[in-house]
């Protein structure tokens, strides 16, 4: 889960990692007050979770208190890539000598955390890494021992730093790493990390991405998801509450299946035959029961773009009769007047087929046939 910049920065402060002085505002009045408290030209930064807020005009400089009020009013009325601006971080402008990058990320191929650092901060680090890999210092960290202080100093030396600055950057890197460990981060990064005129380092931007699977260890953020204050759409949140894995897509064919790989392959098949899926929905975690199929159907059908539906079940732990019962009962309860294609094979297949046949619902036995058929019917 992504944290808002202001949340990430309040974590930074807990670890005494320097960040620019700033205040969070929820109204233009509060933004003006914040500006007055800072008493100098300040940045107004929209607090959104989508990327690219700067290019979209979500970060603006205010020179006077009146201007702060006016800009805040504009920002609060804005949607950045569809996400409304609920809070603004009003923050002092820090003069910088240089912009650096320091991040800690999960290195999937070696199964370790990797510290990444560069003196080319302020821009997309992936771009730096692909164009001039020698500009990015990397260090894989032993997951049992953690990052040693001397390792942080090695990174600092490789960045070309020395003297007091070397000590300072090592301390900064260690703090960022500790934040990563404490919050089970998939990613924690400061980009840019500013080198000030005095030679110190300040995290001008700070991003924290928490591993969703660790949220039970971080109840405060678990709560925030329940308050619907996260990067998910309404439908995605409802799916999450029902324990379904759901991602909204931009096509018009609804998809329900059991198993992440099977559902991904189903989306690919639909595209192969010239259609576009409206969603990804895996109802299979731990077995797709009748209740889960009902929940999945309600969620998928609540997407108004859905013109046809493909249910693809390869039953292992899941039982075809349960799936069939879920489909039949949902049709009775909420009606389903769109074309539906069902592919269903595996455990209790005969019983499942009997239930569907009795209800007058047809089915197929291969996902290729199913995908071809649903694409044809979505167009007809």
């Amino acid at each position, binding site marked *: 889960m992504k944290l808002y910049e202001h949340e990430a920065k309040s974590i930074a402060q807990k670890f005494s990692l320097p960040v620019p002085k700033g205040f969070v505002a929820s109204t233009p009045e509060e933004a003006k007050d914040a500006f007055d408290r800072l008493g100098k030209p300040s940045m107004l930064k929209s607090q959104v979770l989508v990327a690219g807020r700067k290019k979209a005009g979500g970060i603006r400089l205010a020179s006077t208190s009146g201007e702060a009020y006016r800009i805040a009013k504009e920002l609060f009325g804005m949607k950045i890539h569809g996400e409304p601006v609920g809070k603004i971080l009003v923050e002092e402008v820090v003069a910088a000598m240089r912009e650096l990058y320091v991040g800690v990320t999960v290195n999937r191929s070696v199964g370790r955390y990797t510290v990444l650092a560069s003196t080319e901060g302020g821009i997309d680090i992936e771009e730096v890494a692909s164009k001039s890999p020698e500009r990015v210092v990397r260090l894989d960290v032993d997951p049992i021992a953690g990052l040693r202080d001397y390792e942080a100093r090695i990174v600092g030396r490789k960045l070309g730093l020395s003297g007091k600055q070397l000590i300072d950057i090592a301390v900064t890197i260690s703090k960022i790493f500790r934040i990563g460990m404490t919050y089970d981060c998939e990613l924690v990064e400061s980009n840019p990390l500013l080198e000030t005129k005095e030679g110190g380092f300040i995290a001008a931007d700070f991003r924290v991405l928490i591993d969703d699977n660790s949220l039970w260890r971080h109840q405060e953020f678990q709560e925030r998801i329940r308050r619907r204050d996260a990067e998910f759409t309404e439908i995605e949140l409802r799916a999450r509450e029902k324990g379904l894995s759901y*991602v909204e897509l931009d096509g018009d064919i609804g998809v329900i299946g059991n198993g992440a790989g099977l559902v991904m392959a189903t989306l690919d098949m639909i595209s192969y035959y010239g259609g576009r899926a409206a969603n990804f929905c895996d109802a299979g975690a731990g077995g797709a029961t009748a209740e889960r199929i009902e929940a999945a159907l309600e969620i998928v059908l609540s997407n108004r773009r859905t013109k046809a539906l493909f249910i693809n079940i390869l039953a*292992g732990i899941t039982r075809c009769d349960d799936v069939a019962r879920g489909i039949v009962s949902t049709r009775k309860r909420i009606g389903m007047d769109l074309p539906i294609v069902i592919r269903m094979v595996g455990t209790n297949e005969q019983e499942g087929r009997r239930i569907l046949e009795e209800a007058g619902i047809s089915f197929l036995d291969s996902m290729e046939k199913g995908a071809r058929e649903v694409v044809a019917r979505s167009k007809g």
Partner: protein
Amino acid sequence: MAVLVGKNTKALVQGITGSQGEFHTKLMLEYGTKIVAGTSPGKGGASVCGVPVYDTVAEAAEAHEIDASIVFVPAPFARDAALEAIGSGISPVVIITEGIPIRDTMEIRAIAHERKIALIGPNTPGIIAPGECKLGIMPAHVFSKGKVGLVSRSGTLTYEIAAALTNSGLGETTCVGIGGDPIVGLGFIDFLELFAADEETKAVVLIGEIGGNAEENAAEYIKGTAYPKPVAAYVAGRTAPPGRRMGHAGAIISGRTGTAASKIEALRGAGVHVAEKPTDAAWVLASLVGK
């Protein structure tokens, strides 16, 4: 011969008294897997499907000869359970549990590596040697003893393709899920090595999906070693949007890494037959190695 498990494997089930643990213990026993003991802290002395339950792995290992463990323990306790099995020197350890924090898996993986323990998973359907041993939650009926080794990041796609291999008459030597999480124990390359050394395995199917670069690394390995057996592959997620997690914790395109296109290109570059549709992988192999 099957790899890592076989008809003489004597297995331990950790978390045997939970609903999943008990349900699958029954199914594994029905398949013919030799399950000699189970563990569940606080429930020592009980019995599940006739299998004796111990409080600790150490006690189970003292009373029985054990050479594999399967873990059904819920995510918050899974690290401890896996480390307990590793601590007793049991190998392989198969972790079925989904939803284990990445940081916990990193620790399990590092310690397993240090102790030279074969770790499978987490978030895996397990491993099956058709007709000999099922150490997992896969539906048994889609598998049949034969000559293809199958290694996969996805459960249901494994079943889809295994069923096609079975229907084509090829059958399988061993099918294994390496797990759908970003970080897992043994990977594609480890199993490619095992399959290369296994005489009965005549060809390999590799099932990948978006996220990370395990498929690219496997392609490099296949190319670099001039892999001795034909390999077919399927990669799921060609149409997945970047930045979104597609069901599995590990199935996510991050920035520029993890796209299906990059994986398919790498595999094709290594001479792997990448199928357009899942079941095509089986037909491709049938034509390559003959029935």
